[in-house]
């Protein structure tokens, strides 16, 4: 807009400014390129994994969520709860898509303490669809006692409460731009997936494991109190064409936990697409209006 400014010929690119700029650029590049893989709190570098819910049009794979729920129910749920997830959520849009009948039956398999009743007594009743998916332990103390002092965390939010670092492009701002524009929100899902697969047959030679601890290549510090929970063929899938491997189980349950952490993901992404389209059209119209109005003003386009 100001290109027509009449500037007197005056060299601003002097030696002094050249040196200053060079120093500034070198300094910044040096700072930003140092040890890029170690953003705070993230230790493991994991490249971006493929998930059906990645990207601007991402959606959950219903069959995968159902398989993931099966893995959770048959393996994880023996120690971990999902305290923010209600049984009814399993039948809601954008989730595993169980039927209401299935959900009621699943909930009824659990026992929930309720009360007090009219006699002032607490009592147990079968779970309802409006109950949350509880931890098998009554409290943290009981959980720790049963697990050699370790506390199995609630898994509702686990894929948002964990993260990994991404391979660096060598310059931090480039990483930020890449991460923002690929909408990199599955870091924690990648973490869960890699963690579940991160149990080697033997720990590396010379690695000292604590009592009752297991080696894991992803867990911070590489010592985890959870034994490898998944083994090939441990769960039977209804779909015969899906492999029953640790890799597949880990993938499915991670996808399921991505849903428990972000149950409104599908609603968000589909609304998001419409909002972005709307704003795009609005921006174009406003730009045209702006050009038209300013065309009356000399010296502006």
């Amino acid at each position: 807009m100001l290109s027509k400014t009449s500037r007197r010929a005056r060299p601003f690119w002097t030696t002094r400014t050249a040196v200053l700029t060079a120093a500034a650029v070198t300094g910044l590049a040096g700072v930003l390129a140092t040890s890029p893989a170690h953003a705070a709190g993230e230790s493991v570098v994991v490249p971006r994994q493929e998930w059906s819910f990645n990207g601007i049009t991402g959606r959950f794979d219903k069959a995968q969520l159902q398989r993931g729920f099966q893995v959770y129910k048959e393996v994880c749920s023996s120690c971990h709860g999902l305290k923010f997830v209600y049984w009814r959520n399993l039948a809601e849009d954008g989730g595993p898509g169980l039927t209401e009948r299935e959900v009621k039956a699943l909930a009824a398999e659990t026992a929930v303490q309720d009360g007090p009743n009219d006699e002032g007594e607490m009592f147990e009743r079968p779970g309802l669809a409006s109950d949350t998916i509880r931890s098998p332990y009554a409290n943290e103390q009981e959980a720790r006692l049963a697990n050699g002092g370790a506390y199995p965390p609630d898994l509702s939010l686990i894929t948002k409460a964990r993260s990994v670092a991404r391979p660096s492009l060598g310059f931090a701002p480039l990483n930020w731009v890449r991460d923002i524009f690929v909408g990199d929100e599955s870091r924690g899902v990648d973490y869960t997936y890699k963690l579940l697969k991160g149990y080697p047959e033997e720990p590396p030679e010379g690695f000292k494991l604590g009592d009752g601890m297991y080696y894991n290549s992803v867990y911070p510090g590489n010592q985890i109190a959870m034994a490898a929970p998944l083994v090939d063929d441990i769960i039977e899938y209804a779909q015969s064409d899906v492999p029953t491997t640790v890799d597949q189980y880990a993938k499915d349950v991670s996808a399921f936990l991505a849903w428990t952490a972000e149950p409104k993901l599908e609603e968000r992404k589909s609304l998001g697409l419409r909002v972005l389209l709307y704003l795009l059209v609005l921006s174009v119209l406003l730009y045209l209006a702006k050009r038209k109005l300013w065309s009356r003003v000399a010296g502006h386009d």
Partner: protein
Amino acid sequence: MAHESTYKPNSDVEKFLDDRLPLPRMASDFLAMPTPRNLNYFYTFGGILTFCLLVQIMTGIVLAMHYKPSATEAFASVEHIMRNVNWGWLLRYTHAVGASMFFIAVYIHIARGLWYGSYKAPREILWILGVLIFLLMMATAFMGYALVWGQMSFWGITVITNLFSSLDALIPGLGTSIVQWIWGDFAVSDATLNRMFALHYLLPFAIAGTVGLHIWALHVTGSNNPQGVEPRKATDTLPFHPYFTVKDLFALAMFCLFFAYVVFQAPNYLGHADNYIEANPLSTPAHIVPEWYFLPFYAILRAVTFDFLFIPAKLGGVIAMFGSIAILFFIPWLDRSRVRSAKHRPIYKWFLVFLFISVCALGYLGAKPAEGIYVVLSQVFTFYYFAHFLIVMPFIGIIERPGELPRSITEAVLGGGGAPIGAAAAPEKR
């Protein structure tokens, strides 16, 4: 209003109002405000910031209807909003991402003010009000982040409130007393969360009031502009409406595009995973990192690793951090150059570029562990940050020979002596 009122009450109702509470006159004069014709897109961020404030207040009020400021219920109530409240996820993500957007916009707005010298006479009070708003924003954002009551919230409050305990080095017991007074307890607790909530609800209205004063002051002095010369004749300005309303709206729509992209596609990108773990006083996260918009100041805080005279390192860091913001209040008097715009300041502009680089670098360093080369670099950039305001600004202004200023804005836009080029003559004429 510094400019002549052009309002003519037309109807009886308008005349009635004009004699009693001339709101239509105010609105009309706001829209007619003569605005320098050469404002570029960096000047749209004031409007964008007003929008950000409104978004934060509107989403915040609804969120407060569902949030529970209690140490045992806060975290779960946030999840309740995300899962069970109609459109709760949208409200909360908009509010959380909105805070970041607010800061992106305010940093651009401040940088624009520094670049074009918008703090110089007669805009000193306008600038000071701006710094005050920035300070209030930081306090509000800090307390808002605390409300999530995740691990980073809890440990963030713990670290920052504990800074005051460094005052113990001056008067034994003073710091500790202040910290306990802030906490309302002997540790960060339910009482602390409760008052954070009360203040987080209060401060945005203090911001709104200060913004009102900021805009009032703007309408008294008029906008500065990229040339840094005051409008002198009619062709130097255009009425705010429709020229700048349409330009601001276009810029706002583009900004919203980016805002919406982050809200819908990467809502947690600017946050920290640890804050999805409920606050636990017994477990300290491996790294305690504030939100990105505090990182430059956090780096300054940690850069002071040495005792200075009678001031121990910890207190020194606190003084440096608060000083880095306090110094902004004095900029109008620290800058000795009579030329406003860095455009016409051949030497100073490169120092200013380096200041921007330093702040970005400090932001990067603030997220790094305080060890080794990171500390040294933080110290270098912190030194430059203060040197820029205390040494560069006063002295360059005296020794620098500024470039030639255009005689008027019209000349700067059109070239030559201000004779309009082409058929379109005076801007007001169609």
